[in-house]
């Protein structure tokens, strides 16, 4: 199957939004998606974008059963390790089910690696759910290490009420 990997444009946000929800459904967390297409456009295509995105596109002849030609995406951003400097974090990687097994996921990830290499990033990191064995195997096969298993790193979060409460107790400006 012929496909093209290219940098996302602002007009792609509608398709990216659609696929973000599809990925959330797969991860069984669709009720956690609060963001709109407009917010994605604002956050990804302003003068200081908060993320970058590459999309996978197929020709009209290969469009999906619902008529989509944008069939996969990878959303990533830059992080900073105080040990090693600039790193790239791959936040979302998704290919629509009917387009899997054709090298599109690999193509999207390679593009992020290429972008990371150009910016001299020393690491590419990501988070995977522990039950997602197909993805875990895919990443391990390409050389990723499970840092939670090997070094015991856990991801923590403050949000909602806990964050509000902490913020309310901050020293006044």
């Amino acid at each position, binding site marked *: 199957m012929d496909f093209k990997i290219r940098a996302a444009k602002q007009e792609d946000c509608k398709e990216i939004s659609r696929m973000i929800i599809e990925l959330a459904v797969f991860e069984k967390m669709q009720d956690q998606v609060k963001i709109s297409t407009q917010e994605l456009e604002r956050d990804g295509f302003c003068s200081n974008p908060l993320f970058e995105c590459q999309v996978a596109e197929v020709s009209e002849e290969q469009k999906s059963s619902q008529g989509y030609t944008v069939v996969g995406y990878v*959303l990533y951003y830059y992080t900073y390790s105080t040990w090693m400097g600039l790193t790239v974090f791959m936040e979302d990687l998704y290919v629509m089910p009917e387009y899997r097994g054709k090298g599109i996921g690999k193509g999207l990830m390679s593009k992020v690696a290429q972008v990371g290499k150009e910016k001299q990033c020393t690491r590419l990191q990501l988070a995977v759910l522990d039950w997602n064995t197909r993805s875990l195997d895919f990443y391990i096969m390409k050389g990723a290490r499970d840092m939670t*298993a090997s070094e015991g790193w*856990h*991801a923590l979060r*403050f949000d909602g009420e806990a964050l509000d409460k902490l913020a309310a107790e901050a020293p006044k400006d």
Partner: protein
Amino acid sequence: MFKLRKAEPRDVPDILRLIKELAKYEEMEDRVMLTEKDLLEDGFGEHPFYQCILAEWQEEQSNEEPKVIGFAMYYFTYDPWTGKLLYLEDFFVVEEFRGKGIGSEILKLLSHLAMKTRCGSMHFIVAEDNRSSIEFYKRRGAEDLSKEEGWRLFRFDKDSILKMAAPAEE
């Protein structure tokens, strides 16, 4: 008594010193590759990759220069479900100054900054054997996403990146 302030270029030697002390606490001090030059370029150039808050200590009625005894390094990331996030990369208070509420005040300031800059949440990672830090965060309402939702952190190192970035040989 202590004071919190934004880091400036002149603070780079202190920032590196504290990064190394934190790495030592995490028993990984030989992994710190960054130099003062890197920190200066990366944090105080045209497009900073990180932001930094410092905690300074000065003995009451002392004429000595305040000492930098704690820091927090953070930057902004993105959750495609909820939007902008504050990511806390490093957070450390020198041992002899712990238990005085400094860490607590730093965390509150970061939360305030998060809300002010339109962040929906604050994320960070902790090593699971660092019980005292995990307790510190959980007491204040943090959720352990690895434990509760099963998220595992994966990493590709430089060699793997170079391999993936090379053109395909198919």
